[in-house]
């Protein structure tokens, strides 16, 4: 096993149990995973397999029942609210399926929001790079309600990138978009990894989206069951079919 420093994020034997007794759901069953620095990792799996749960645990948005999560050199497990707040400020960025922009702020203010909250000055050069990469230069003064879905998600991407976090977590970022806007976003994420060395973890159930990643981790029933490196869309689809068959077989 490599040292924690070389990985951007790490989960070690992570269990997540919701509820108790009759209503108990085990969402993660001993997941161990390393997110490589400067790589684009996709987490795939059927609905209900625990993808979102894994991502939330990795990002420190949710606590784990057992096991340990580390981001960069910070042990996330056991952090209090102020520790988590600091972690979110300095180490992680988020992209959500529903964009989640603040309607009272302009696109530009939304992009700079995490920096403003942290009280940090934006690095002008980087900021220009980011808005040019996402292609929003002429929309900066607009409010979210005046932007299309694709544009809003690009603002959300720029917001995640602007602070140059250790890891960006994206939960189904293209789930609410048409295929063209979705492709734009995926290209943009790909470029941030390739050109700027950003680490990105993306949850998706779309094989095509997963094919943009350097590595795909397959989750089923709360466990990592497989993985692929430098996948093509076809290879991903193939794996999913096989997994589905085995899941069905297990069910029967």
């Amino acid at each position: 096993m490599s040292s924690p420093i070389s990985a951007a994020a790490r989960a070690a034997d992570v269990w997540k149990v919701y509820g108790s007794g009759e209503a108990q759901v085990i969402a993660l069953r001993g997941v161990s995973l390393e997110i490589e620095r400067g790589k684009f990792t996709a987490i795939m799996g059927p609905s209900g397999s625990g993808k979102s749960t894994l991502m939330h645990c990795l990002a420190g948005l949710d606590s784990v029942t057992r096991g340990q999560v580390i981001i960069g050199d910070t042990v996330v497990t056991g952090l209090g609210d102020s520790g988590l707040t600091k972690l979110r400020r300095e180490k992680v960025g988020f992209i959500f399926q529903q964009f989640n922009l603040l309607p009272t702020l302009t696109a530009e203010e939304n992009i700079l929001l995490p920096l403003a909250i942290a009280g940090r000055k934006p690095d002008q050069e980087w900021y220009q790079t980011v808005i040019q990469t996402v292609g929003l230069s002429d929309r900066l003064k607009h409010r979210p309600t005046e932007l299309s879905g694709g544009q809003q998600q690009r603002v959300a991407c720029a917001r995640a990138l602007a602070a140059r976090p250790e890891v960006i977590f994206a939960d189904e970022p293209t789930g609410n978009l048409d295929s063209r806007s979705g492709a734009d976003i995926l290209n943009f994420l790909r470029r941030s990894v390739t050109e700027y060395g950003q680490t990105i973890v993306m949850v998706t159930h779309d094989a095509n989206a997963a094919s943009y990643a350097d590595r795909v981790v397959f989750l089923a029933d709360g466990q990592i069951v497989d993985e692929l490196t430098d996948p093509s869309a076809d290879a991903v689809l193939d794996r999913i079919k096989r997994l589905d068959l085995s899941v069905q077989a297990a069910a029967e």
Partner: protein
Amino acid sequence: MLKAMLRGLFAHKLRLILSALAIVLGTAFMSAAFVSGDTISRGFTDLFSTVNENIDVQVTGKSDVPVNPAGGEGLVTALVPQSIVDKLKTVDGAQTVTPQVVSDGARVIDKNGKAIATTGAPRLGGAWVDGDPAVEIREGNPPRAADEVAITANLAKTGEFKVGDTIEVITLQPRQKFKVSGIAGYAGGRDSLGGETFVFFTLPVAQELMLGTPGMYSNVDIKAASGVSDGELKRRVETAIGTTEYKTLTGQETADAQASGIQSFLNVFKIALSVFGILGLITGAFLIFNTFSMLIAQRTRELALYRSFGASRNQVLNSVLLESILLGLVASLIGLGLGVLLGWAMTKLLASSGLPSGSVVLKPAVAIGTLLVGTLITVLAALIPALRASRVAPIEAMRDAARPDKPLRTMTIAGLITLAVGIVLLILRGTKAVDNNVITLGLGSFLIFIGAVMLAPALTRPITGAIGKLVDWAMPGRLGVRNTGRNPRRTALTAAALMIGVTLATGAAVFASSVKAGVTDLFRSDLNADLVIAADFASGPTAGFDPAIINQVKAIPGVTSATAIQSDAVRLNGKDGFASALDVEPSKTLFGLKAKSGDIRDLNAGEVILNDAFATETGLKPGDSTTLVTARGGESPLKVVGILQPNQLVGSPVVSFADAQGFRVPVAQQGYVKVADPSQVDAVRAQMKTLVADNPEVTVTDPSEQLKQSTSFLDLLLNVLNVLLGLTVLVAVLGVINTLLLSVFERTRELGLLRAVGMSRSKMGWMVATESVLISLLGALLGLIVGTGLGIALVKIFGGDFLKLTIPWGFLITALIGAVIAGLVAALLPAIRAARLNVLQAISYE
């Protein structure tokens, strides 16, 4: 269907409780006013019935002299002589005839040398009557010698006097020493009937000290022989002594007359307090209106869904009607219960200061009225937004539940028109074009207020934006400012609730500070005196000093001019009003008296100088003859010697001290002294103090000190007013809490996002607090502006010398600071909610 809708209502428990709380507070206040008023008034009615229980018919002297508006109703006016008592004894059917001597103004000095005060009740002195069934000696003996007195038990308690002690009493005469021969109480174990004190003298002493005339009585109580009705006895008495000089009343009539004076005072008390209760309710109505608007806006989609299933518009309305009736009724019931409790506490509190009390009185009309008003206001406030929502077509509502704000233009234009009409009405009153105060002042002020409320949404963004510049530098501040401007209607309506109380308080403050400034100016510019002797306000209408003392003051080295002023209500030239006795020559210097016509000089008995207004009104000229009627002196002729130029300090006719001997009390209320050199003031003051050292009811001060005392009642009045208006502010704060809770709830996802990108809990709190403070400041600011405007208008309209337009900056600034604090307090609960949101749940919140 109905069930489903009711579930919708109860899903928002906290907000429901908050709006219900507003109604509870309003109704509680209103009913408490009536309950305590009614309870006290029943107490008084019972009291007077008890007092007059043993009196079948009472005879008093008839006096035409007007009651002194400054008080002292118990002061003797016309008396009953021994001859009439003798005549009454011969009336057929009069079993016992008891002549009485009772009058206000027997002040006992306590161990610290101060006159023992009551809370407004008279300090009676009179003759001990053996065999009076209402009064009993509890300890010791009745007064038998001229230097003996019996005192009531409450007096003994307050002054810590025992039988055998020597006490000093001020009456019409200066203080005299008496020995306490006994402690008296009333039937039923009462120490006092209604907080009054009583000193019992022997008959001749009482006649001299309390009535100032030997051989006279204040009233005669008659008990009827069996078989003779009170009414019959009254008729026989009237036949015997006539009705021109003496008033004959049955016991019941006496009780009613005594109670009615109190009753009208209590009515004012009840009405004044319920006005504040109603203000609280109206503020509450804003809150309910806002809550239901928000609840219904949230549920527009749901309601539209019902309608698309075929529910009619009426069904939707009916469900809101039912909800609001339920809410209003329950809240008013709780309010009524609380009000009864409050009223009971209030009467207990007053009873401890001597007011009569009994069991709590809750009139059915009060109970029903409270429930009705509380429920009606709730229903009205809830129905308006429901009506509006039910007009939205189902498809429209379902398509777009989160409608963008409707434009504010119509509302703003309507607001401007309303405001303009209100202003025009005030101008009409100001120019005296229309004299009806209800239409001009009342309606005008109301329209201005409503107009301002309607303009508030349009003003929300500019005002909060401008104030927001102060906190814009930090992210929580900036977000808070933006959130405030997000839904201007909601923000404005919430702020409007606060506006009500602030507007009224500000208007009152502007008016009061103008009165204060006006009075101060009058004093400063027209009064040319260095020292003042004045009877203490709290010592009642009988307090004062012997006017002859002023002659000794004049003899003090350094004193250049001095005069005493003795005032009373009289009838002059057939007209009721005040008259004063003063030394005219020194008054020329002291008060700047100048002749308009005739002579302005020291007066002899039978001479009068008229003030300008009086002369103009009556047409009297120097040399004319007229008549003066005083309380004790009866009627006497007067000759007009001069007419004064208008003077701010002497605004009533001036008579001689000789004629003033007919006034109710033989004391001067004020004295003014001018000293040659300022360096001598302290020495003169010291000598004057020794002159009145044995009189605990007067103080030697200087004009500025006296001014402070005489305007202090204004401050007191304002304080009371502000405490009462605090109720409406309290309700308004509930409204702010309510609105913010809703906003936090509606913006759950955004708040979650902020947390996800690294906003700390405390900064979340500050964001909510910013919004809260901005809403409060908006309300306060609008209230201050409208209130100041109305206050200025009132001052301009009433004009007059006692008003000098003054803006109470201190008050305005305090109000703004208060608004910030209120905003912070209101933010507490919503801010905690926002800070404690679970980040993950908040983000995935639908």
